[in-house]
């Protein structure tokens, strides 16, 4: 059976598409799945850096679709996980070096070999976005609890539906429980209410992600942080498991006290 091709997209830049792609890919590979990550952000590639594989790039996606390199030679095997591979984007080319038809053929070819093909989409809704979604069967939308990001996620949802990618799943990234509690940040229910799509998970804002990203190590490999746990839960949900949403809010004495006296603000539902 052919593998699942999932595009990870957002509309807005900087919400964590690439970090999400890296962590979901690593998480799926930890479960023993064969995973290929495809960086569709031609000209502004990042996924190789986040994965710590930049120094292994010899050929890239554009060279493969142009026929200058063979797919198997361009795939970079991850240095930590056996079933994980990366097809890097070209850095010295532009988005229009590839057409949606070529991406479709490429994704189909990869889906024959891998259980999962995760396509990291560039920000925006232009050519690069259309390339990224061309070969996908499913979509995951990443957003942050900010009005602008949610607005863009909504726009993307509409575009995906217009391209026959209905039922996209949502990941809300960088939620900060304290801010939500103070009412300074959109909470999960607000986001869901606007977008009305299925929630795949919530990833708390976590300094460990920045550290891990700079080191080229997906945080999910590290273990004990809340963010790592959140990614592992999302991965299991992608696999079809029912995983209850974890509580992100710390049970500090303050919150317990507030609950006790009936002042508890909205509960923060978790990843």
């Amino acid at each position: 059976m052919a593998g699942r091709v999932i595009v990870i997209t957002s509309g807005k830049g900087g919400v964590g598409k690439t970090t999400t792609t890296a962590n979901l890919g690593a998480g799926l590979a930890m479960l023993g799945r064969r995973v290929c990550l495809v960086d569709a952000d031609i000209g502004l590639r990042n996924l190789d850096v986040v994965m710590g594989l930049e120094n292994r790039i010899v050929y890239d996606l554009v060279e493969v679709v142009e026929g200058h390199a063979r797919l198997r030679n361009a795939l970079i095997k991850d240095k930590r996980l056996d079933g994980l591979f990366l097809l890097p984007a070209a850095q010295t080319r532009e988005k229009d070096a590839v057409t949606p038809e070529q991406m479709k053929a490429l994704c189909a070819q990869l889906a024959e070999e891998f259980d999962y093909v995760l396509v990291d989409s560039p920000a925006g809704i232009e050519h690069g976005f259309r390339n990224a979604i061309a070969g996908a069967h499913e979509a995951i939308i990443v957003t942050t609890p900010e009005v602008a990001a949610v607005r863009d996620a909504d726009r993307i949802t509409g575009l995906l539906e217009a391209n026959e990618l209905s039922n996209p799943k949502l990941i809300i990234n960088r939620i900060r429980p304290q801010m939500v509690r103070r009412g300074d940040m959109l909470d999960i229910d607000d986001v869901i209410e606007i977008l009305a799509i299925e929630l795949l998970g919530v990833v708390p804002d976590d300094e460990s992600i920045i550290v891990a990203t700079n080191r080229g190590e997906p945080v999910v490999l590290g273990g004990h942080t809340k963010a790592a746990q959140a990614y592992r839960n999302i991965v299991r949900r992608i696999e079809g498991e029912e995983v209850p949403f974890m509580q992100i809010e710390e049970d500090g004495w303050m919150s317990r006290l507030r609950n006790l006296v009936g002042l508890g603000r909205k509960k923060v539902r978790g990843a």
Partner: protein
Amino acid sequence: MQGKEAVVFKGSRAGVSVQVDPEAPLGAVVEELRRKLSAAENFFQGASVRIELGDRQVDPVEQRVLRELIEAHGLTVVDDDPAAVKRGANGKPKRNAPEPAVSGIRGGLEPPGEPCLLVRRTLRSGQRLEFDGSVVILGDVNPGAVVVCTGHVIVFGALRGVVHAGARGNTDARVIALRLQPTQLRIAHYISRSPDDQVPGPSGPEVALVQDERIQIEAYVP
């Protein structure tokens, strides 16, 4: 120096000039121009160039073809009107044909050396430089930038990107940098990559060369 090339790019303070061999057929000129422009697409992007036709008899069509080709690659053509090239009584252009500063050793001989491109800026992520010959860069080569050339690469700065020297198979090619910290190094068909764990390298200049069938790095001793 470069034999019978129909088109030669020359850089000077005034900008880039394209010197067209007066004898070469238009077809050859156009083809070579196109090849050289595409090979260095990013490098020339936005530059203004002067077309220098020397003694060549040009008709307006031919001139337009060259101009459009150059502009299609993102360059701006300035002052390509043949009338602007002042000609002496013998029909030789006076301007743009300066006396060579070095006329060889004791006259007559070609100056020793080989083609070399001097780049006086930092190459940033996404920029790709290709050259048939050696390259000297007075600046850095940042991660994500690529330099590919058939000769040596010398970086008077930090080399952090990808460099491929001796790209047509010259295993004697060397890569020298004041700070040699490339993402990846290629010399001829050899490839080496940076170690995954950040090890602080020596602070002095280093040279990479092929020894014992692999790329080795040592301190650069002039």
